[in-house]
């Protein structure tokens, strides 16, 4: 695990300053950090704890409680596949198996070329168009294995 570089430190401190006077700011700060850096670095925890007057254990406890917060940098694009019931009824399991094979990774892993991180998600509210997937916040419905391959091709080319 690399220590935070000066710009990252600067970013974390700026986000803390932005939120620290609001009620119940910790989740807001963690969102801010992940949005800016792609994950919540372990080294950010003491900074956040000091900035918000919390214990490190408390901050760590919150970061680890929520599935959304990542502990390592993600690939260039984050692919989320829905695993919940409605999507299962339309073949989400088969799609997940296909996606893992196509990308050569398991859930929570990043492809060797650093382009994609594959993550499970439990419902995207697109349950009438199952199976559903989301890539960097863009939603897709009725994702067949063929459609998945098209999406990978399309997103591979994106910065």
């Amino acid at each position, binding site marked *: 695990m690399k220590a935070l570089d000066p710009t990252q430190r600067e970013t974390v401190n700026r986000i803390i300053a932005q939120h620290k006077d609001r*009620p*119940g*700011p*910790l*989740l*807001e700060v*963690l*969102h801010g950090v992940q949005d800016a850096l792609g994950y919540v670095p372990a080294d950010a925890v003491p900074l956040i704890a000091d900035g918000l007057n919390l214990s490190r254990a*408390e901050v760590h*406890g*919150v970061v680890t*409680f*929520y*599935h*959304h*917060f990542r502990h390592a940098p993600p690939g260039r694009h984050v692919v989320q596949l829905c695993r*919940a*019931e*409605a*999507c*299962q*009824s*339309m073949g989400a399991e088969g799609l997940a198996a296909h996606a893992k094979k196509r990308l050569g990774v398991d859930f929570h892993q990043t492809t060797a070329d650093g382009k994609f991180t594959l993550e499970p*998600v*439990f*419902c*995207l*509210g*697109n*349950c*009438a*168009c*199952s199976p*559903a997937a*989301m890539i960097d*916040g*863009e*939603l*897709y*419905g*009725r994702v067949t294995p063929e459609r998945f391959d098209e999406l990978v091709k399309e997103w591979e080319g994106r910065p």
Partner: protein
Amino acid sequence: MSVTIYVPRDASALSLGAESVAQALAREIEKRRLDATIVRNGSRGMFWLEPLVEVETGEGRIAYGPVKASDVPGLLDAGLLQGGAHALRLGPTEEIPYLRNQQRLTFARVGVIDPTSVASYVAHGGFQGLRNALSMTPEQIVQAVIDSGLRGRGGAAFPTGIKWKTVLEQKATQKYIACNADEGDSGTFSDRMLMEGDPLSLIEGMTIAGLAVGATQGYIYLRVEYPHAHRALKEAIAAAREARYLGRDILGSGRHFDIEVRLGAGAYVCGEETSMLESLEGRRGEVRVRPPLPAVKGLFGQPTVVNNVVTLGTVPTILHKGAKFYQDFGVGRSRGTLPIQLAGNIRRGGLVERAFGVTLRELLYDYGGGSATGRPIRAVQVGGPLGAYIPESQFDVKVDYEALAEIGALLGHGGIVAFDDTVNMARMARYAMEFCALESCGKCTPCRIGSTRGVEVIDRIIAGRERERNLRQLEKLCETMLHGSLCGLGGMTPYPVQSAMRHFPEDFRAPVK
């Protein structure tokens, strides 16, 4: 005069290509120098027809769908702007049977108006409820909500007006309205559709709740999986503030109310109201022991109304049209209408708002058109991951709180997920336990350990190891979870598991492959 064309910006419509349709339309309109304006509306909730394009004509709105970007030049050639004939033409939108046979109260404006426009909202009856509420006493507002019979649409179905009354009676300098927009149940998307398609109705509902109980600050706890709803809410809040419907001195009344959106972080249990409050305060989403109720000691220790998006989004209708109008819909103790969501393996998935009392069979076949795969529907799960599985023999059950409870099921947030006959119910039971283990907040042992044990036991059953003993063990585990859990996650995970065992015993005794 400029012709108005509607192309949804609803997340599901976008997931099927609505953005590229809108772009293609904009390009062609420009190229052909047509006098037309594109409005990005919500979805009408007929997802097999999305992207659904509508054109405002002399005979009302005419629908076309499902439209692909490549269809756009051909549609314009066929006279789209005049509602011209085309293979994708569906006729007047409101005459499509799926929509015509609904009673849309809460969803009256969704898919109809421009969700970002206060003027469009007001032109369709928006803020009438708030105007009425501003001339009423808090007690009168609360009484109207009690009289309407409205019960919470988030799952627990608690009478909304009674909850508000408790908060109104508390003495405190600060009270809060906390909107539960965590919508974690698989098979549900009504909160999302309302927030994207008519966010001002939620803002209006929260403001009325604030006037009713004496709260000046509202929070919307929105799941992070809903970035489109997030954008829609932020735009709507800004627009409402700008037009003085929100913020300080609402419409010159001297009353204040403001709203902030806070994002969740991918924890299902944070939809449970006390876990949500913990999360809003920036902590781990661990469920609180009740009492005290949130109505007495809620957010930041203050009296708090916690209500679901659809509950709050229904309040403006009640204050606008009156309690009697609303409570005239429905049956027994299930008053008003319910936005039902048809999801999963269903041909015509979408949103059906009807008065309580429609049967599951009508929903699945008359609206839903049977399964998407064309195979028989074998089971449906109603009410999300904690809801029971219902077999075909019980499809005549009425979709209301009491009728479902009678057959050991629950309505929850009104999501219906259909499965065809390829489903393996032992696997679905396993998934229910796995989900509980993954999402447990960890506070009680039956939930935290029991669910992990449940997965192991079901694995042994599926593998054919000591089946009878393990089936008995699973029953026992379920009983322990039912009775020894602090909240519904551990306490209701047995519903899908036990209903699967009860109605589909053959799947737990299938020959081992």
